[in-house]
Each structure stands twice: as structure tokens, then as C-alpha cells.
């Protein structure tokens, strides 16, 4: 199965929210829709969910326009909520019935899911009595209750503690392994990186990057170098300097290093170099050898998804937002 978004555009009033957006999510692979707040993730998902139509473009399933009556879609909206004053079982039975699960079947399915999510004791409780994290797990149950072919989760990790986030990851992985199309949006790169195969990076309503994470990382310039020198003690014995002073002195000497290296960071004796170009790698190493630097390790660092995200969206992602 393949869910394709083709040239979607959407305007709200004067504001253009999506501009000619296209990507494809494939069954059996987790697809992460990344972007900063306001990048257009939720709008994209709402168009897929047919909450409102796009101004232009199409949503295709296996090449044909997506018909909601013909396919089951499990959806967890960004704004998570349900009836606070109604018992969990009644709400879940209701939504299951709306999604076409028979009454006899749905009770069994719901009990299984609550057990899986470690929520069995809340079967007969009102939603408002649950903690926020548990309410969110209920949302996951709601999304998966009807055994959907397509699973769409909008910011599923927000508000979950690490243990629950792990549980969510396991469940999503199961869904992926069952061959379903799993699409979720997030701005938390660490979660996305650990189990997404494909990503689409949205910025201001446009796709900035799209493809498998491995491909994207491989395509990405390999210009980050991790460099370990023999520790401070040995350097000090030789020249009375620590690693930082030593490296800075090298950079200021009349050699090529300052031209080849863009940026130097030293964190706890470990050097991080950003090269002006990835082809400078050999030259840098040669220079270091030439000055008899006590190199212990010299390796290329793969960019993390977060590095790519920050670089693509131009601004620093505020840290501490990940939960």
C-alpha cells in the first residue's frame, strides 16, 4: 500500500499554509512528518483525514483518490481529548461502533487494548480520573481500535513519560511490521530517528527533505569530524598545554588548518571539527600528522536528524522540549 500526497496546496484566508507539497508513505515503513510548530504538519494530516479539502492537489492511495468509506484509518489528533465525564468503556465502545466494529467484537478488542496499554483497571472509570499520560494512551487505543490499514498519529509523543513512550514505540513498530502505513508527525527528532524509516521534513508549508533517513544522512555532507588527542596529561608533559590551547595554537600557526576547518569545539578534551568541505578530511589529517599531533582517533560523525532539522529549518530547536 502506498499513500501519496500530490502537490497539495492550502490557504487559510491570506495565509498560505501548504505550498505544492508532495510525499509518499509506504506500507511496512514508518513515515515521520517533521517540522517546527506551524510548519503545516497538522494541516497536512487533516487534509488526509478529509477534515477539510486541499485547495489544490490530491491524496492518493495506490494511485487512486483516497476514499474514506473504503479504508480504515486510525487517527490520533494533535489536540487529544474525549468525553471527560463518560466511562472509558462507553466511549471506546461508541467510537468502535462508529468505525464499524461490531458490538460483540469491540468489547473484546477494547479489553485487549486496555490490557496491552496497562489500563485494564480503568475500564469502568471516567476519563477525567486518568492522568494525562494515561488519557493519551486511551487516545492510542481509540486510534487502533478498528484495526486500521492506515495509522496516522499527530504528535503522539507529547506528554508521555519515557516508559510510556517506549510502549508507544513498541506498538507503532508492531503496526509497521504488520505492513500498515504508519504516518506520524513530531518535532521530537530523537524518537523519530530511532524507528522511522522515512521522513518528510516540512518547513513553512514546503517539503525541505524527503526520503529514507539512511539515504538522507548519507547524502548529507560528511564534514563533521570527531578528533581525540592523547589526553591533557601527556600534552602537558610535552608542551605544558591542555587540548584546547594546543588545538588553538595549531589553528593559528601558518599552516592550512585554519583554512580547512570552519569551526572547532572542545568538550571535555574531545575535539569536534566542522570542516569547510568534506573533501578536506585527508588534508586535515595530513596536517595533524605533519605537526606530530598525538592523534588517537579521527572519525567522521554522521549528522543526527536533529542536526539536519536545525540546519534545514534555519533556527535552533529549543532544547528541553523533548519529553
Amino acid at each position, binding site marked *: 500500500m502506498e499513500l501519496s500526497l500530490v502537490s497539495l496546496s492550502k490557504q487559510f484566508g491570506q495565509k498560505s499554509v501548504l505550498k505544492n507539497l508532495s510525499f509518499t508513505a509506504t506500507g511496512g515503513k514508518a513515515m515521520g512528518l517533521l517540522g517546527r510548530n506551524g510548519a503545516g504538519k497538522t494541516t497536512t494530516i*487533516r487534509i488526509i*483525514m*478529509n*477534515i*477539510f*479539502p486541499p485547495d489544490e492537489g490530491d491524496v492518493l492511495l495506490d494511485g487512486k483518490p483516497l476514499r474514506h*468509506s473504503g479504508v480504515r*484509518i486510525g*487517527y490520533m*489528533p494533535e*489536540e*487529544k*481529548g*474525549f*468525553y*471527560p465525564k*463518560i466511562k472509558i468503556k*462507553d466511549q471506546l465502545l*461508541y*467510537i468502535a*461502533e*462508529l*468505525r*464499524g466494529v461490531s458490538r460483540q467484537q469491540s468489547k473484546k478488542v477494547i479489553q485487549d487494548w486496555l490490557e496491552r496499554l496497562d489500563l485494564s483497571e480503568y475500564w469502568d472509570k471516567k476519563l477525567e480520573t486518568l492522568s494525562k499520560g494515561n488519557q493519551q494512551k486511551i487516545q492510542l487505543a*481509540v486510534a487502533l481500535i478498528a484495526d486500521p490499514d492506515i495509522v496516522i498519529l499527530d504528535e503522539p509523543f507529547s506528554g508521555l513519560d519515557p516508559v510510556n513512550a517506549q510502549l508507544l514505540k513498541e506498538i507503532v513498530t508492531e503496526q509497521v511490521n504488520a505492513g500498515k502505513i504508519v504516518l506520524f508527525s513530531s518535532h521530537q527528532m530523537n524518537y523519530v530517528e530511532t524507528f522511522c524509516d522515512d521522513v518528510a521534513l516540512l518547513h513553512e508549508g514546503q517539503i525541505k527533505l524527503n526520503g529514507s533517513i539512511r539515504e538522507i544522512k548519507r547524502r548529507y555532507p560528511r564534514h563533521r569530524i570527531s578528533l581525540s588527542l592523547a589526553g591533557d596529561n601527556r600534552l602537558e608533559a610535552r608542551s605544558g598545554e591542555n587540548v584546547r590551547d594546543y588545538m588553538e595554537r595549531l589553528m593559528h600557526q601558518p599552516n592550512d588548518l585554519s583554512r580547512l576547518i570552519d569551526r572547532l569545539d572542545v568538550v571535555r578534551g574531545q575535539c569536534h571539527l566542522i570542516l569547510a568541505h568534506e573533501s578536506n578530511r585527508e588534508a586535515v589529517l595530513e596536517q595533524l600528522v605533519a605537526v606530530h599531533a598525538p592523534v588517537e582517533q579521527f572519525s567522521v560523525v554522521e549528522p543526527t536528524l536533529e542536526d539536519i532539522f536545525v540546519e534545514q529549518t534555519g533556527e535552533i530547536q529549543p532544547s528541553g522540549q523533548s519529553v
Partner: protein
Amino acid sequence: MKRKSQFRTVMRFEFMNYMRNKVYVGITIALVLILAIGLSIPAIIEWARSAGFDFADPNKEKPPEEAIHVIDQTGWLDMTILEQALPDELWVQSNPEQIDERTRQVKENEIGALLILETPDSWRWIVHRISMSNDVQGVIQSVLNQQFTAIKLTQAGLDESAVESVMKPAQWIVEETVQESGKSMEQTYFYTYLLLFLLYMTVMMYGQMVATSVASEKSNRAMELLITSARPLDLMFGKVLGSGLAGMAQIAVLLLTTGVFYQLNASYFADIPFIANVFNMPFEIIVYTLIFYLTGYFAYAFLYGALGSLASRTEDINTSIMPIIMLFMVAFFISFAGMLNPDAAFLKVFSFVPLVSPMAMFVRICMTDVPFVEIALSILIQVFSIWLTGWLAARIYRLGVLMYGKPPRMKTLIQMLRNAR
């Protein structure tokens, strides 16, 4: 997925929410109890009295503090006439010398009242406070007037039979031709009033419940899940019907309670004409009450639901449903004014105007003889207006449910409806 079953699922869920709602169930039970107890009060009093409780008994003699003292300076008074005319009062004849004493006693609430007949043409009535409901004064006046006039006539030289023929009141026979059809205003006014009020209350109450329920689905964010699981039309119609059924159930329970407890206590009410009139209303009126509850409820409930969908928070509901409340109140007052003159032309016109007709036509049916063709036409118009408001409501609802922020103005709303595909 199947459309019909979704609609029914929503309806059942909404209906069950009422049944599970402790407030709804509690209010219904409270109303049932009030009706049951209220209708049993005469029986309860009688039982309590037979069990020995001391209740205010209208047949019991009044205490001296309520006695009416009479001082006759004319010598014309015949106390038995007063005693016959107002047998419930305690009459005491006092001497003319006691005037000051008795006046003081009235002032200090030691006796009920003092009547002084100074001359045949001038009487004085001294009372601590004139009560609104008491017509003792009027009765005394007319009884004594009659007696004194007779004495005056005798003194003027008329013989007894002539006096009698002069004093005899004219015969007053009332024949109301409309009575054959059972639509006498006197009989119908009270129950029409009750039922009109019942219509007004229930439509208003359940309409508001629909609006609140839609708005709270928005504010608790259940809406996005619902709207992606069912068609907006099914959600809206299911909700309106579910609430409507809950309203019907409540009305039915209340009517049933009233009927049963009236029947149990019917003997006590036989000689209270206005209560008997209410319960002797023609059966067709009950049927029409249900019909017009339904047509009125649906026409308004759709509008309530639509405007409820424009509110993002439950606090905004009142602002957003204000237009319907106004409209509904106008409709109510038109019908209410029509009750004073149910044959008026304006009521006739309004009984065919959508959104006003459920109440206006109902008043006409209750109080006058309306040709069946007109009733049918009115109901037809109402059904059509339900269809119209339902269609309009579904369009507003679809736009409104995911719109957060300030409720839009009427003008922007119309514009949005035009632009929507």
C-alpha cells in the same frame, strides 16, 4: 461504512448519555415526586386528619381573635342574615358603648374586625389590615344593602310582595354555543397555558442541551475524533434526535405520572373546576402536544446545534445561541398574546409562519375550532421548515466544528457558507 447505522449509533449514544446523566435522572425523579405528592395533597391531608393531626379545618370555628364584632346604631340589623351569608366567620354583636374598647382591640389584633352601622346610609368597617384575598367586606356590603333597601322600601309604603318582586334579581342564563365542541375559553385557557408553557420550556431546554453538547465536544476536543469517524450529518442528526428522544421520554414520564396520580385522587378534585378542566382536556390535545413538541423541537434543535458548533468553549454558548433564543421568545409571546384572543387574524397568519407556527397553531387548536386542512397545512409547513433548518444547520455545523476562537459574526458566517464547497 454504513450511513444509517452510524446515525443510529450516534443517536443511541446521545440518548444513553442522558440516561446515564445523574442530573437528568435526578431532575426527572424530583419532578415525578413533586407531581405525585402535589396531586396527592388532598388525600394526604385527609389521611393525616383521620390519624389525629390537627390541621387548619375550614369547618372548625374561628378563634375569638378573628371574630367580627358588629355595633348596630340603626336598630335595623338582623344578625342572622350576616351569619347565613358568611357562616364561616365568627359574629359577635357588641354594645354601642363598647366602640372605643373594640376599636382598640382591632388595633391590637385582639379581634378580627369591627363593623359599625352608624346610620342606614353610613357604615364603618375597621380592620387592622385590609387583606387582598378576603371578600368578606364585599359580601357584607351587598347583603346589608339588600336588607336595608328592603326596609327603606317598606317604610316608603310598599307592601311585602311588592318589595320582594323589586328585590328579586334578574335571571341570568348563560349559553355558550362554542361549548358543544369543548373549546370554551374558560375551560381551555388554563390547560392551553400549561401546555404552551410546557412546549416552550422543553424546546428551550432540550435545544440548549443540544447546543451545549456540541460546544463541549469542541472544547473537550472529542470533535476531531468524531468528525473523522462519522459524517457530520450523522453526528448532528443523531445528536438532535437523541436529545429529542430524551425529551420525549421525560415528558412522557411526567404526563404519565400526572395522569396516574390524578386518577388515584380524582374524587378530591371533582369539585375544583379548573383542575378538572385540565384533566378533562380532549385526548387529541395530548396528541397535538406531542406532535408540536416534535416539530417545534426539531426546527429549533437544529439551529441550536448549528450555532452551538460555532462556540469554542461552553462559556461562549450563550453569546452564540442568542439569536435563536430571541426568535423563540418572540414566537412564544406572539402565541401567548394570541391566547387572549385566539380568533385574531394575526394568530391565524402566524400559525403558518415557520418557527412560530408550532406554538401559534397549537394555541389555535387548543382554544378554537381549526379546520383540519389548516392544521395539516401548518404541520406540512413545519416539516418543511425542519428540513430547511436541518440542511442549513448541517452546513454551518460542518464549518463550525473545527473552527476555534471567537464565534464569527453573522455576516462572516454567511460569507463562509457561500465560499464553502
